Every structure is written in structure tokens, then in C-alpha cells.
């Protein structure tokens, strides 16, 4: 079973929930945590895994053999991303714009274009106290997160439970990270910002046909509009975590909630049972 932990709004507690859920289950289940927030991965800050392997993430970008090239311009004409251009006697490639679709090399009438790998990030994996772990890191200065997310997800164990920490937002990195999940936990907070972004995240999950449930974090501040929204939209609130300075302090030090306050383990196990009960 694949459970994603997403939110729309950043900083609502995705990583807190994902790490605590994984740590609460690991004694009795085969469980793996994948951190797919490859722009700002943080799960490792809490889990401190021993990294046992890593590999670079590449996308194939064009390399033009100027001796074979006739400057016909076909490649520039078909590239949807303006990543290749014919300027006078030269063909210029802009590899940062290239999505690696392969169209230019396939369609070049002179077979003058080959592909070479361009590194854009890294996937690392290992173990944290019996918990299998993998995450990805987008190289600073690179723009495209989805190829790294895709490669992190290839590290998922077969069988058992896979918990995925999803990046914030609702666009392509979120879609890449969340697709294929059996269930999505949406972590929110009881404020107008939390509600606005929760509604966007719910729409995204509905578009992707993934059942979801809510974790309400920092309960006790703000207003009750999130709860009202959940009732109206028939979304179950599966766990409520109060605003608590003790929890915030643990978080600030990078200590998982269920490690600093083990009494929370039962709540996360119960959360898991509720997910199993509500998902397809």
C-alpha cells in the first residue's frame, strides 16, 4: 500500500506526519519512507538514515555532430522547449531547457544528433533504525524536479507499506510524486491559508482519483472553517495534532514527534488503521 502525505501549503507538518507514521509502523510492518520533496528534502533531518547507496539522476540531452549536420533546422523546428537552435553555421543547444523527450535525435534526417546524459540531481537510499529510506536531491540551480521524483519512486520496496513525503503545491512535482498512491493524507492547519491551499490539494487528488483524508495540525489556533469545509466535502479528519510548544520544540531540533513523545505512536497506528479502512 502506498500512502502519500501532501498539503498544498508548505510548512503544515507533512514531514512530521510522514516520519512519525513510518516510525510508528516499523516495529510491526514492513515499511519504507520515500522523501519526494526533492527541492527541499527534510525527512533525513529527522530520521538520520545511514546512507548505503546513491546514484545520479540524468536526463538525455542532445549532442550535435557538426560534421554530419546540414543546418537544415528540423531539430529547432520540432523542439517544443526552444532548447535547440540553428544560428548561422552552428547548432546551439540549451540543455537547461531540454526535457529529454528525444524527438530531435530521432527525427534528425542526417542522424547527426546523439544524446548525452546531463546530471540534475541525486537519489540516495539507506536505513534508519530498521526503516527503509530513500530520498532525492535536486541540484541547486536546476529547475526540473519530476525526473528526480520519478527515480526516487523506483526505489520503492515491493510489498509492505510505502509512505511518500510529497512536495508542497499542486503542480507537476506534486502530480509526479503522488500518482499511483492508494491514499493521500492531506496535512493542514486551521487558518484561511491552510484552508485555501487544502481546497486546491483536494481538487488535485480528486482530479487524480486518489482517495484522501485530513490531518489537522496546530489545532486550537485560527478558526473552525477547515472543519466546516471537511464536513461539507465529506472528508474525514483522521488525526488532530494540537498547537503545542513541546511539539514545536522537538520539531525545531529535528526530533521525530513519536521519539520525543512516544505516547503519540498509538495515535499514528490508529491513523494507519483508519486509512486501511477508508481506502479502496
Amino acid at each position, binding site marked *: 500500500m502506498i500512502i502519500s502525505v501532501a498539503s498544498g501549503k508548505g510548512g503544515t507538518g507533512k514531514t512530521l506526519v510522514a516520519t512519525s507514521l513510518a516510525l510508528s509502523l516499523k516495529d510491526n510492518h514492513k515499511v519504507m519512507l520515500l522523501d519526494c520533496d526533492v527541492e*527541499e528534502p527534510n525527512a533525513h533531518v529527522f530520521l538520520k538514515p545511514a546512507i548505503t547507496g546513491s546514484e545520479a539522476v540524468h536526463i538525455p540531452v542532445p549532442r550535435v555532430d557538426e560534421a554530419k549536420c546540414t543546418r537544415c533546422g528540423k531539430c529547432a523546428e520540432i523542439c517544443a522547449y526552444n532548447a535547440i537552435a540553428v544560428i548561422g553555421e552552428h547548432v546551439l543547444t540549451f540543455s537547461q531547457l531540454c526535457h529529454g*523527450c528525444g524527438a530531435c535525435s530521432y527525427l534528425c534526417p542526417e542522424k547527426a544528433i546523439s544524446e548525452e546524459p546531463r546530471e540534475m540531481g541525486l537519489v540516495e537510499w539507506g536505513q534508519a533504525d530498521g526503516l527503509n529510506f530513500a530520498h532525492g536531491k535536486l541540484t541547486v540551480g536546476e529547475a526540473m524536479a519530476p525526473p528526480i521524483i520519478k527515480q526516487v519512486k523506483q526505489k520503492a520496496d515491493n510489498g509492505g507499506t510505502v509512505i511518500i513525503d510529497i512536495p508542497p503545491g499542486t503542480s*507537476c512535482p506534486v502530480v509526479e510524486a503522488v500518482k499511483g498512491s492508494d491514499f493521500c493524507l492531506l496535512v493542514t492547519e486551521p487558518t484561511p491559508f491552510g484552508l485555501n491551499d487544502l481546497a486546491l490539494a483536494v481538487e488535485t487528488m480528486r*482530479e487524480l482519483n486518489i482517495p484522501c483524508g485530513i490531518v489537522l495540525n496546530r489545532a486550537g489556533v485560527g478558526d473552525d472553517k477547515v472543519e466546516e469545509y471537511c464536513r461539507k466535502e465529506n472528508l474525514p479528519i483522521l488525526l488532530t495534532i494540537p498547537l503545542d510548544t513541546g511539539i514545536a520544540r522537538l520539531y*525545531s*531540533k529535528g526530533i521525530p514527534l513519536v521519539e520525543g513523545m512516544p505516547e503519540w505512536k498509538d495515535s499514528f497506528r490508529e491513523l494507519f488503521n483508519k486509512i486501511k479502512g477508508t481506502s479502496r
Partner: protein
Amino acid sequence: MKEIVVLSGKGGTGKTSIVGSLAALAERKVLADCDVDAADLHLLLSPSVKEETEFWSGQVAYIDPDKCTECGLCQDLCRFDAIKDFRVDPVSCEGCCFCSHICPVEAITMKENLSGHWFISDTKYGPLLHARLGIAQENSGKLVAVVRQQARKVAEEQGFDCIISDGPPGIGCPVISSLSGASLALLVTEPTLSGMHDLDRVLGVCRHFSIPAMVCINKYDINEENSRQIESHCLSQGIEVVGRVPFDNVVTESIVKGIPVVEYSDGRVSHEIEKLWQNIAERLDRN
């Protein structure tokens, strides 16, 4: 034109609350919400929308079932796994058009994609440029570029020389699009290990694109030891810490009321944000 973009790496550190307050403090400026995925600034500024424009960007492949001979070439060649059973999954399609070029019976056409909307609004603090990316859409970086370009246009029309932008979390495509060519990045962080880790990466992005950066430590008193570490780390890299805003529930209360915190309360948070703005304004004058 001076353009300040507020970033953080980690989400939820308080970018939008700070930008809302800067909107109330700064004069003669245009505001831009570059977090087009999950825009929240409008919830603090109560905009009235003056102009709404569709954002068409990118293309999605469509296979005509009447023409398709199910040869499977498109499925074999698509590197985004967007074609299954001779149908295109529009969410996975990256609009590269490869399939439309190679289909032997020309059954595949590309359709323009409505990926969102952008708005020019009036607020009591000045014009606001904002946008809404369609659900599960790509091209957020391009929509950010449109918001910034329109913000510059409005600023020029009104004779203003300052743009304050609320940026997205992360370090990827929409962040790079928010940052490139800006005069200054204000990085809002919090004294948590995650916040510090993420600050370091977004500082790296600023360095990569040669954008001067300044740091504001929000909720600095939730872990003062971490805050001191951030200060010394910034000092060692020549990055100025221009704001130290304490944690206070008054910020959440102001969000619930839908007004910038500096207008809601005159407590410590507001005073510190006022000092933050003075520091930024001085730096902008120096540049």
C-alpha cells in the same frame, strides 16, 4: 525598477505574512504573488479584480481514435509514459509533440492547453498581480514569468519604482522564475533544523543566479540556539540578517481577520517587521 522577491526554501515559514505587512509599510509599489500553485497573499490584501486573463501555455497530445491504427509507435517512443492503450494521459503529457511528429497515419494532434488565469487587482495597498495555476498543471514557471512581467508593466504605467513579490517554496522551476533578474531576495527562515537546511539550499540558488540575499529569522524565539546558529552562519557568508520576528499567535489571528499583522496589532511582531522594512529600504537605497 527595484524588485524584492521573498523566498524561504521551506514552506510555511511566514513569507506571505511578511509580504502582507511589507505591502502595508512600503509606499509606491506594486505587489506580485508568484506562488501561483498555492497563492495566499490575496487573503490578506482583499483585492478587487480589475482584469482577468486566461493563461494558455503548452500543448497536450490528442489521438484521434478513428485514424489510429494502434501501431504502438507513439507508446514506445514517449519518454513520459503518457500514452497507454492508445490514449493520452493529459496529466503525464509534457507537450513535447514527439508523438505528433512520428505518427505514421497523422492521428495525433496537439491541443493548446488552458493552464490557468492571471489577475490585475486593486488593493488599498496598491496594485496586486496574482494568478491561479490550473489544478495539476505544468508551466508554473512560465505563469510566474507572466505575473512578474505584468507587475513591471503596471509599475511603469503608474510611475512606481518598486515591486514586492511573494515567492513559492522550494528551489525549482517557479523559484528560479521568481528570482532571475530580481534586485534582492529576502529569505524568510525559521530556527528549526529543517528551516536551516532549506535556507542553505535557497541561498545556493541566489548565489547561482548572482542575486543579493538578506535573511529574516521568523519565530526566532522558538529555538534561540538555532537562531544564533543561523546568525553566525549568515555572518560567515556575508549575508545580512535584517529581521528577527518573534513567535506570537497574533500573526495567526491577523490571518484569520484577513489583514496584515502590522495593521492588526502594534505589539512586538509589528515593531520587528517595521524594523525589517527599514533595513530593506536602506539596502535598496544603497544599491
